[in-house]
């Protein structure tokens, strides 16, 4: 059977699993249905919460499997409502969309799933009977022995049966992946939270992250305003005052005026430096000039740690807000590694697949970082939220610490890349 692909056998195994697990679904569906019919008698109220709970456990298992087999995450329904009493609980369950979806699925699954899974299984099993069993038993079975439409009463008949069996096995195996995928997709569709639930959740999340983004933005503006006020602005005022005094002294005491003018020069240099620092904090110029990869390399050179940067990014630039968020996150993580983890070496990798920018920062420090403590990590997370980005932290005591951040962003459209190519 070396000609058959491994994936076909895996799919056949899945069909078998679906077939067997179907009994569980039938059981759970019947229980829930039974509880519903018993509601008028009152006893149904006692049974329904447990039955609905069992049904949810079974359907959750199917959800996990459907997500794995289709490779697409599946948005689960809201958790089943609970009541203070059996009666209240049941009432809440009866009003819950998720429960009715589960029930609908439980009654459909044995038919749809059963049929889809049964076709390849039946073909392979009947094929195995023809190819592996008939050759040994046909002599003993006598005249009435048929295999499908083939009378197996002679060696020629036996060989035909064997051949037919092999054809059936092959067909069954080839069908298995198709059926398994079809079933997984169907399950995915039936068990996903209704579109409205999904959208409601999305809206809630967007409102949340938008509020955060506005807060971050407002805080940033306040910081800039304060920095300007205390820094460059104050220095310019001082500059004006000193210049005024120098002008007055010019006629009477040129030497003192000269000293003041030298002061003015020093102050103007400091004001410039203040502005430079401010600009760097808003948007580092190298990010504009060169993009994320070189900006991170620049961070690496600024750090006193040994920082190794590995880059695998498309030549086209990523969206500016994404670059900026990733840059400041890396900057924060590098500071953490130096300050809190007592690390000496850091590895940074930047990669991008079709949908996500992925940045991982690993240090050789003592680990044990708490993602919820301090302002650094929660701050990074808050900024990433706006992009639906994530920050995963793996920091066992003793180290090493790995922080991985992912930001969804499609690789630049051809339009963007061609416009940057002409620049």
């Amino acid at each position, binding site marked *: 059977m070396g000609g058959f692909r491994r994936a076909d056998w895996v799919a056949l195994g899945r069909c078998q699993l679906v077939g067997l697990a179907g009994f569980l679904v039938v059981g759970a569906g019947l229980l829930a249905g039974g509880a519903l019919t018993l509601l008028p008698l009152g006893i149904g109220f006692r049974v329904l919460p447990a039955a609905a709970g069992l049904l949810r456990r079974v359907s959750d298992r199917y959800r996990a499997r459907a997500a794995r087999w289709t490779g697409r995450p599946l948005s689960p329904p809201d958790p089943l409502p609970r009541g203070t009493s059996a009666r209240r609980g049941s009432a809440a369950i009866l009003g819950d969309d998720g429960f009715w979806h589960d029930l609908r699925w439980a009654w459909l699954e044995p038919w749809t799933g059963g049929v889809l899974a049964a076709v390849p299984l039946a073909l392979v099993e009947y094929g195995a009977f023809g190819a592996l069993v008939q050759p040994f038993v046909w002599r003993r079975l006598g005249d009435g022995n048929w295999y499908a439409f083939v009378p197996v009463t002679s060696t020629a008949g036996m060989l035909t049966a064997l051949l037919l069996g092999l054809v059936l096995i092959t067909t069954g195996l080839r069908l298995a992946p198709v059926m398994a995928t079809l079933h997984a997709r169907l399950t995915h569709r039936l068990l996903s939270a209704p579109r409205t639930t999904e959208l409601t959740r999305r809206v809630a999340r967007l409102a949340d992250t938008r509020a955060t983004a506005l807060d971050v933005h407002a805080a940033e503006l306040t910081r800039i305003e304060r920095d300007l006020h205390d820094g460059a602005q104050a220095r310019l005022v001082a500059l004006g005052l000193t210049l005024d005094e120098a002008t007055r002294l010019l006629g009477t005491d040129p030497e003192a005026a000269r000293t003041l003018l030298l002061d003015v*020069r020093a102050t*103007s*240099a400091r004001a*410039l430096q203040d502005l*430079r620092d401010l*600009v*760097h904090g808003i948007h580092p*110029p*190298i990010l*504009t*000039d*060169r993009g994320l990869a*070189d900006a991170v*390399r*620049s961070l690496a*050179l*600024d*750090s*006193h740690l040994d920082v190794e940067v590995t880059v695998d990014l498309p030549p086209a630039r990523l969206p500016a807000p994404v670059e900026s968020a990733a840059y400041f996150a890396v900057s924060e993580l590098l500071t953490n590694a130096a300050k809190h983890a007592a690390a000496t070496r850091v590895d940074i990798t930047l990669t991008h697949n079709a949908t996500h920018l992925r940045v991982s920062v690993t240090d050789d420090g003592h680990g044990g970082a708490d993602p919820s403590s301090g302002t650094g990590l929660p701050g990074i997370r808050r900024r990433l939220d706006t992009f639906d980005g994530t920050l995963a932290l793996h920091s066992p005591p003793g180290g090493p610490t790995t922080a991985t951040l992912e930001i969804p962003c499609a690789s630049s459209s051809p339009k963007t890349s061609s416009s940057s190519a002409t*620049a």
Partner: protein
Amino acid sequence: MRVVLAEDLFLLRDGLTRTLREHGCEVVASVDNGPALVRALRETDLDVAVIDIRLPPTHTDEGLQAALEARRTRPRLPVLILSQYVDQLYAHELLASGEGAVGYLLKDRVTHTAQFIDALHTVAAGGTVMDPQVIAKLLTRSEKRGRTDSLTPREHEVLTLMAEGRSNTAIADALHISESAVAKHIASIFSKLEIEQSPEANRRVLAVLAYLKG
């Protein structure tokens, strides 16, 4: 000295041209954008190019790219890059673009005319001039790694100025000590850090920078 000047802001270009003329430099070409700079660096007979890093049309690092490109085809072409901010990565790229004849300074350093003209002459003569901010960052890094622990505070000061590309005379002036004292400090620094001492000033700076980068 023949100077090519690249600066897109008219006021600055005008001011720089005047400063250069006052100090006996001849501005043989004065350009305000990247493509014109590339052409000027390819075709002009020059002793040194003074380049603003940010030029049209992209307003990013056009000037630096043009300088690096020119130094690939004309090795050791003396360039002095001016910028509103200094970045360690750009400093590294410039230092790696050939041995010496490079400078990288913050734009406001031109207001210290004497020092600016000094730097220009150093670069034109094949030397290396790095902005105090670049050197400060390199030194902080070396310090945190414990690579300069053996130096006395005075030697530390001398090392800083030496790394910036200042001559012994300039170092002596800045620290108010004699030139022979400077020479003594330098010898001590080189032996403490185990850097091979080169009689040539240019190589001396490069050796120090290589040590600090490592």
